[in-house]
């Protein structure tokens, strides 16, 4: 019964979204506050309905209700509870429902932001947001109904794909979706500004927290997915330039550019039109990512044509929203007033450069991902665009960006002084150069790019910390004063510093992978395999059974220069229901580095194949990303973004925030 109620709630949400779309839009046009105030109320109601539908599906999963097709196909009664829950979004229909749930949740939060958003802007924003909701509700109701019943009811489910039965994958999609969908709010605000024909620093101040939050979540989601691929797929790699990864990287790159351009807009009232365009672009890329992953077009243009219903539907959504918003942009953008002049050498100038490089990098990923599809569709020729292409084109765009980053952060607003900036960065540059040279000397004969990359990472860290030093330290001041000044710096400053230092850490982690060591061998119990100065001894291979799988466990004893460090286990699993084998990598963390072991097949002579890696500083890749996201969150908690709105926005539409 609850299943049908869930289905009904979705239909109800669709009806309410239509109201949320039409009424406030009209209200904003005729300036009727009553009509405009319909927006927040309906937004909350839509969220309630979708939330109920999601809950209904969740209950069906947790109670293993095998009369529901979706549960049959993706669940099993013996599955641990956490995977019964994560199974809800471990499939197409459920993940779309989660997408909509997050979308409407964001709408509800905008609706509740009672004080900070002018009513007209809010009404238009929620109307645009409702349009997105309508499109996706139609998609799920027409092509991807998760509540479909199955008759006769089977007695057992087909289990969730074993690769998805992993804590990392349980939280990866929600994080990623919050990021993707978060940009829908920025998009809605941008369209609302275009509809209204006015935009100012207040707009930027309202939009920035949303952008920052979406960006931070997307960062977390991508990092999480990367770490999951690293330990679950068993190849030891952490980024594969897979189209699905690229689909999440593109909005991240555009979103990163957006986070920076809104700063310029908020502080200096410049780059307005560009910021609007970027908001539209970022969400368009999120939609594109959804299309790429959900339509099956990635495997081949042909597999897309086999079952086109879903693909065509999302393609329709894509074209309608991207085309519509760009048309709106072309029509209304000339109305927006440009403001805020600045010299080319200035903080703004540096941020413009940042935007240029980030969007070019984004375009590169975009073209690399879609070129094979377009070529196949147009000429029938099949080519592959893989990691070698992206490494070759992406890195030359990102490295200059990272090199100018500390300079940009140090430059003054409006008109900067390049010489003075260089002087202020002198210590950071000198130190990182010295470390790079020392590393080159130490690792002479090894990979050349590794020390350079590490040096760049250190420059990024020192260069961003430099801002804290110059703003809190002066000659002769006591440590207590320095500490007080440093802690009194705005949180957004600390956020910037941390996010940039986080990139530095990630860069170091990536560069250090050039020093990783791999070895492959066939071992019998007692046999030994070496990777660099580390050595493993195969203790035993034993069978073991758990809830829903059987596995062969290889115990490896790890030692370093004859000193024992402990045991790690690596497994070959067989998930019984699907009869599917997986390998579980055995990982031992030593400081920031890891020993990574992955089981191969049994050889003819009874020994087992083993891949062993020593990966120096590999954890920095993800620690850096976590710090980046934390920097975003810290910036989000800046008091400037929390207070400063008048108590009632209704009667005071134009300038809700007083000067700082």
């Amino acid at each position, binding site marked *: 019964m609850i299943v049908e109620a869930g289905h009904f709630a979705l239909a109800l949400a669709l009806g309410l979204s239509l109201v949320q779309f039409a009424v406030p839009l009209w209200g904003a046009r005729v300036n009727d506050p009553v009509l405009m105030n319909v927006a927040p109320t309906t937004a909350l109601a839509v969220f309630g309905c979708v939330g109920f539908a999601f809950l209904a599906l969740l209950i069906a999963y947790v109670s293993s209700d095998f009369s529901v097709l979706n549960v049959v196909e993706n669940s099993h009664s013996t599955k641990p509870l956490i995977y019964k829950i994560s199974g809800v979004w471990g499939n197409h229909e459920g*993940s779309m429902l989660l997408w909509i749930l997050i979308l409407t949740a964001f709408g509800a939060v905008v609706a509740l932001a009672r004080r900070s958003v002018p009513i007209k802007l809010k009404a238009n924003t929620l109307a645009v947001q409702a349009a997105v909701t309508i499109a996706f509700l139609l998609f799920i109701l027409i092509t991807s109904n998760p509540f479909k019943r199955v008759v006769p009811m089977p007695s057992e489910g087909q289990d969730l794909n074993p690769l998805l039965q992993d804590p990392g994958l349980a939280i990866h999609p929600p994080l990623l979706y919050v990021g993707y969908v978060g940009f829908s709010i920025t998009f809605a605000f941008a369209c609302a500004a275009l509809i209204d024909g006015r935009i100012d620093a207040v707009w930027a101040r309202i939009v920035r927290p949303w952008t920052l939050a979406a960006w931070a979540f997307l960062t977390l989601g991508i990092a999480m997915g990367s770490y999951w691929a690293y330990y679950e797929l068993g*190849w030891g790699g952490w980024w594969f330039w897979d189209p699905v990864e690229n689909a999440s990287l593109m909005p991240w790159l555009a979103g990163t550019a957006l986070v920076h351009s809104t700063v310029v807009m908020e502080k200096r009232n410049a780059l307005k039109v560009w910021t609007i365009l970027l908001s539209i672009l970022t969400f368009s890329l999120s939609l594109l990512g959804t299309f790429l992953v959900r339509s099956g077009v990635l*495997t081949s243009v042909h597999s897309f044509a086999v079952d086109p219903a879903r693909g065509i539907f999302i393609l329709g959504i894509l074209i309608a929203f991207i085309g519509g918003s760009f048309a709106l942009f072309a029509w209304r953008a000339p109305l927006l007033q440009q403001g805020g002049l600045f010299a080319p050498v200035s903080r703004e100038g540096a941020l413009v450069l940042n935007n240029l490089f980030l969007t070019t990098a984004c375009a590169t990923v975009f073209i690399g991902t879609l070129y094979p599809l377009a070529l196949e569709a147009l000429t029938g020729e099949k080519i592959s665009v893989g990691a070698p292409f992206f490494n070759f084109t992406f890195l030359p765009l990102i490295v200059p960006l990272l090199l100018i980053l500390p300079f940009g952060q140090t430059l003054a607003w409006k008109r900067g002084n390049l010489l003075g900036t260089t002087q202020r960065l002198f210590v950071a540059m000198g130190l990182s150069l010295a470390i790079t040279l020392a590393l080159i000397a130490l690792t002479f004969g090894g990979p050349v790019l590794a020390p350079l990359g590490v040096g760049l990472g250190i420059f990024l860290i020192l260069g961003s910390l430099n801002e804290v030093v110059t703003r809190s330290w002066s000659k002769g001041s006591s440590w207590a004063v320095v500490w007080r000044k440093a802690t009194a710096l705005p949180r957004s400053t600390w956020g910037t510093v941390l996010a940039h230092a986080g990139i530095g850490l990630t860069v170091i982690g990536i560069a250090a992978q050039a020093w990783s060591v791999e070895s*492959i061998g066939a071992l019998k119990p007692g046999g030994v395999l070496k990777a660099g100065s580390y050595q493993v001894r195969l203790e035993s291979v034993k069978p073991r059974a758990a809830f829903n799988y059987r596995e062969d466990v290889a115990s490896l004893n790890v030692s370093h220069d004859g000193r024992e460090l402990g045991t790690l286990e690596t497994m070959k699993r067989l998930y019984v229901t699907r009869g599917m084998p997986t390998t579980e990598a055995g990982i031992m963390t030593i400081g920031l580095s890891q020993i990574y072991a992955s089981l*191969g097949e049994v050889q003819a002579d009874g020994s087992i194949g083993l*891949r062993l890696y020593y990966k120096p500083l590999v954890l920095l890749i993800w620690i850096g990303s976590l710090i980046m996201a934390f920097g975003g969150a810290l910036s989000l908690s800046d008091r400037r973004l929390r207070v400063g709105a008048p*108590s009632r926005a209704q009667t005071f539409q*134009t300038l809700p925030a007083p000067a700082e």
Partner: protein
Amino acid sequence: MRFLFILLAVLSLSGAAHAVQPDEVLKDPALETRARGISSGLRCLVCQNQSIDDSDASLAKDLRILVRERLVAGDTDDQVRDFLVQRYGEFVLLKPTFKAHTILLWLAPFLVLILGGLGLLIAMRRKPARPAPEGLAPEERKALDALLNGDKPSGS
């Protein structure tokens, strides 16, 4: 968003082999290094975006052995690649060749950067011609007065 990818990875697991096995490794370390270099640039044709060096599929294993056989027979790296392209088409190369049909792909990043840069220059040059708006709009003036006079907006 990796579900599709995983699904395909799973489909390709059917061979239940595993990336580079000990029995495939060549005795000569120099040849083996070359073999690894070549195979990391070759696509496993039945997988999604995986090199044959990473892939678990049995086809990838066959290709890995093939690459090594050709190397042992004395082929250069390019000869091995050409041999595979002849057999499987350009699809097998993860790094596309620079030819007429990929020229746009290879040049696109530079074109975007250059065009973007040019656009910026033009925008920069045109900007100073535009006068900054003078004074405040009436509603801004009203709002400012309200702030300066310490009046909260009515209704609070």
